[in-house]
């Protein structure tokens, strides 16, 4: 089969990114411009919805991706882009860039769902086998996705309220830790013990998640300690929260593995970088000797455009195309 080269563009959140990907599993170039660098120049104020910064960055990022790949547009087979979900203003920038380039260079335009990108990011490090179960965990998503075959997605569990990464950020804020809160809590939890009792939320569908109650329970527990003039040990609170949050994740994964009997399990998304979650996966997968699993390297977990190229390749093969009137969809369903 002829090699397929795709230019991928991602701008759904804080990162402006472009990448050239070959056959969905080989990175030719990968450029990520994180706004976190820009924010630090302003002394730590983080305006996360700076779509203006995306506008300033996008041309440079795409140009660099093409230059790093040492390719002309005529050698590309298509342009894929993140259509959603994400921040509407940020998404627009990438969608417009992709549409303009596809129009100018007469290339097919391939819309990609951000989460499918996170799942397919695992293709860069491992061979993906089906049926597959993916746990997608990030600041905006907590989803269990079952893939019976290539490019078929069934969301079998999702959060009923807050995303897990969001709960981490909010609990971090209550504990007085800086943003982003995930790595901070992970670090602090290592020095503490899970001594504070926190609830295990029940959900109507046993594969769904709920983190809002856990967040409230942390706040209430801290208030109670304060009222009683008892000392609150931040490291222990961080550990208690982390064990409860990740315990809930694993509880659902366990049930889903039993129920769907996949041959492959992957984790994906920013929270997949959490060291305790990675430990839990390694420990708990021992009992599933017939299911292979992939814990992606850290660079694969955060937002990048290569993953959009990985997923976009399979969309390309399935002949999924967007018209020139396609728009960003901040609440896009898989």
């Amino acid at each position, binding site marked *: 089969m002829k090699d397929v080269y795709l230019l991928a563009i991602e701008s759904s*959140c804080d990162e402006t990114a472009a990448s050239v990907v070959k056959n969905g599993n080989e990175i030719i170039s990968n450029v990520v411009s994180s706004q976190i660098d820009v924010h630090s120049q302003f002394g730590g*104020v*983080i*305006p*996360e*919805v*700076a779509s*203006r910064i995306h506008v300033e960055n996008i041309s440079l990022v795409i140009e660099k991706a093409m230059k790093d790949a040492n390719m002309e547009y005529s050698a590309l087979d298509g342009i894929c882009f993140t259509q959603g*979900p*994400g*921040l*509407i*203003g940020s998404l627009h920038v990438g969608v417009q860039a992709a549409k303009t380039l596809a129009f100018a260079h007469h290339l097919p335009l391939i819309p990609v769902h951000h989460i499918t990108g996170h799942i397919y990011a695992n293709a860069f490090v491992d061979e993906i086998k089906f049926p597959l179960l993916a746990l997608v965990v990030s*600041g*905006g*998503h907590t989803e269990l996705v079952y893939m019976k075959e290539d490019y078929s997605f069934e969301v079998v569990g*999702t*959060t*009923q*309220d*807050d*995303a897990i*990464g*969001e709960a981490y950020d*909010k609990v971090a*804020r*209550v504990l007085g830790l800086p943003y982003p809160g995930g790595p901070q809590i992970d670090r602090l939890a290592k020095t503490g013990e899970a001594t504070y009792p926190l609830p295990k939320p029940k959900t109507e569908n046993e594969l769904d998640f709920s983190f*809002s109650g856990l*967040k*409230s329970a942390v*706040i*209430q527990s801290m208030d109670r300690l304060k009222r009683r003039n008892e000392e609150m040990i931040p490291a222990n609170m961080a550990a208690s929260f982390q064990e409860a949050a990740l315990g809930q994740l694993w509880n659902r994964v366990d049930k889903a593995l039993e129920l769907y009997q996949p041959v492959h399990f992957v984790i994906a998304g920013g929270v997949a970088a959490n060291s305790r979650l990675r430990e839990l996966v390694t420990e708990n997968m021992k009992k599933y000797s017939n299911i292979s699993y992939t814990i992606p390297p850290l660079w694969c977990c955060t937002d990048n455009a290569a993953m959009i190229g990985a997923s976009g390749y399979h969309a390309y093969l399935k002949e999924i195309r967007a018209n020139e009137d396609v728009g960003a969809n*901040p*609440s896009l369903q898989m």
Partner: protein
Amino acid sequence: MKKYTVETNSRKETQELAYKLGNLLNDPLVIIMRGDLGAGKTTFTQGLAKGLDITQNVNSPTFTIFKIYYGRLPLYHIDAYRLEGVSQDLGFEEYIEDSDGVCVIEWPMYVQDLIPEEYLEIELLHQEEEKRLMHVYAHGTAIEKIVEEWL
């Protein structure tokens, strides 16, 4: 401005009250939600959405700041939590002024200039466990009518 106070004893009761509001709405409305983390702003909005015949699950919009749901009237759910210190134009006006739907704004202090003259304000205060004290402020005579019908 008229002020009303209600108490709810459980998460379910909060959602039922919100459902009742959603159920009686036929026209666009801006609702401002105040309350600390965990006070129940999203919980309330979930009930409201059901009352608007929205079947999709409403979850926290904190990450994407803005979510749209379609029911009897569209529901625009804005969460300005991450907008602290951001002063740029985000294009939310069209969902707030001359809107065709119900617009719920959480953490309104970060988008103060977007709030219209007439709006419904709900403040959720955390009591013990699932108990919540709710202060409702009707800003404008048309809003007062809605609240009279609701509570």
